């Protein structure tokens, strides 16, 4: 650590923990409590869960719409460019001609965008792209949420800087609740990624007179393409 005051913080830490222990009526760090805590977190115990229907796909779509996402089902990933082109057509009257250009995650780089009349490049956004196309790690049926995990191939800002966010959701990746999403991350990624962004519909605010307005900072609209 460099020679600024941050290096001296150890004493503040020790005093704070000592005050916590004294408030709890303890004198010393409790090795047994620590061992118990470490064992406890590995159980990943769930709290009470609301009942979920057998058809998670339907529940996800219904809840995503409740959160003001728009949803369309398509048969295959290869249908994505045509579906997005059509979606942009339907938006045109609302937003005065959405440019048919944007950025996407690398996993969609090889789709035939030009055949659908779109100009999509695979790169992270720097802030002036109006359309961002992402996938998602998984999706949550309980709340209509998509889960984005950060990584080299999944630049976060593509989902939050452009005016319009289109996310591709593979139906087999729709899980019941947040608990299953966390379990899937542990199983497939091991360590927790830098960022887990659980996104449920477009950015919104109710800070002026509690009137809900979409597009507070992030996307004005989130369109989900459920594949399969």
């Amino acid at each position, binding site marked *: 650590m460099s020679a600024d*005051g*941050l290096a001296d913080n150890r004493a503040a830490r020790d005093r704070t923990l000592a005050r916590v222990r004294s408030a709890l009526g303890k004198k010393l760090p409790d090795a047994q409590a620590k061992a118990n805590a470490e064992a406890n977190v590995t159980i990943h115990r769930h*709290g009470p869960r609301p*009942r979920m229907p057998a058809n998670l796909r339907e529940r996800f779509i219904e809840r995503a719409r409740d959160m003001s996402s728009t949803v369309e089902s398509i048969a295959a990933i290869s249908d994505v460019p045509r579906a997005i082109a059509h979606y942009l057509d339907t938006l045109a009257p609302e937003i005065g001609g959405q440019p048919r250009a944007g950025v996407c995650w690398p996993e969609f780089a090889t789709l035939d965008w030009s055949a659908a009349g779109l100009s999509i490049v695979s790169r992270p956004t720097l802030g002036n792209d109006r359309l961002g196309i992402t996938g998602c790690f998984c999706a949550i049926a309980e709340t209509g949420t998509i889960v984005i995990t950060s990584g080299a191939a999944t630049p976060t800002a593509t989902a939050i800087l452009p005016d319009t966010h289109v996310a591709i959701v593979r139906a087999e990746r729709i899980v019941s*609740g947040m608990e299953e999403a966390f379990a899937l991350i542990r199983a497939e990624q091991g360590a*927790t990624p830098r960022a887990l962004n659980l996104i449920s519909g477009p950015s919104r605010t*109710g800070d002026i007179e509690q009137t809900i307005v979409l597009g507070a900072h*992030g996307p004005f609209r989130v369109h989900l393409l459920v594949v399969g």
Partner: protein
Amino acid sequence: MQIASMHFKARAHANLNDEQLQTNLKKFQGKFVPARRNALVELDDVEATREAARQIRQRALDELDTWLELFEENATASGATVLWAETPGDINRLVLEIAARHRVKKIIKSKSMVSEESALDHAIEAAGLTVVETDLGEYILQINNYEPPSHIIGPALHKSKEEVATLFSNTHKTPWKDEIQALCLEARSVLRQHYLSADMGITGGNFFVAETGSVVVVTNEGNATLTTTLPKVHVAISGIEKIVPTLEDVATLMRLLPRSATGQSISNYVDVLTGPKGAGEFHGAEHMYFILVDAGRTAVLGSEVREALRCIRCGACMNHCPVYQNVGGHSYGWVYPGPIGSILTPMYVGLENALDLPQASTFCNQCGVVCPVKIPLPDLQRKLREEEFARHLRPWHERAALRVWAWFALRPRLYGLASKISVRLLRLLARPNGMISRLPFAAGWTDERDMPAPAGRTFRELYRERASVRQS
């Protein structure tokens, strides 16, 4: 933040007579309460979920030192730096030192109530740096010369759209407009430039997760997501009590937090942030810091009101409080208003500086009933009232009145006789319609309303009669 809590009565009085404020308060009264009720019924077992949430928060507090150590180990292992602030002043000093280390010039902030405790924005500006609040409500208050927030989740809900319109027009030098959508759009375009040019992002923390060393930040605007994605430094500031053991615990608490707050099933953005960005990652902070704040929390932990530390800052207590709903958040004079504020403020700034806050309650227990982590708010207010009495902080006439009452209460026969006489005396004061319009020594009460005269005999008389009927 400056403490004005000792002026509760005067401020409440002024706010009750402020027509504009009363109009604005009335506007938002009807919305939060039914929204919460409708959202909670989606859970199959609300009470079991509340009980689970209570246990999660209580378990964290019961072994707080252990969970903090585990959090620190895991956060450090992920590459973050964990710092500890013992006082509000430490928060400001640490933030400025981090800023200096990384040569930061502009800071963007998503909402952090803890940073209001230390008036962090003022300290940043005093050091010559730029700070921009990005939560729309907080931004509105910032450009209004740092007006204090009046609600923990809707800091500017006391303002009308016309007031916001004037503020925007003056600050942004744009034509006056009072259409809410247009105002939001204007704020969006101003703030977007700041997001793209800031070197540091500061967030609060709804939860610190011990298992993973993460901070969880919840917003609807997505401002915390942008704040933690674009700048090269992220500093997450929150109280040491915000620890929860696991991500599963977050899942349980998140079934209650947005429902209790705004009546949403889920907040639009729930971000779980762990360490700096990894190899090959384009976005995300290169440097991540946690500031774990004590600033009075360990004193609460060792006190009779420790249960207040379970609070997850949903605001349901204030949304349901008849006192808050009428006097507004500013009357409370510090960072946290409403029932939870009437506990935390005296504990953090000193009971002697917030004497009226534990009294600012009718003990109706609406707050206790709606609290998602089952904090017995009226019980805790009563404990603080007891402490005020024990520390001789109440006015002499109140103490004298209580003494007189206690003297009678300890002598049951005399008490029975005295209440019998007073009931009959009160009946003499009543007008033919059975109402008393003026009561000696209680003009404050009868000036504004009539009091119904006691109808018949005292409770003790009735009780004795029923007991003898049952025995015969």
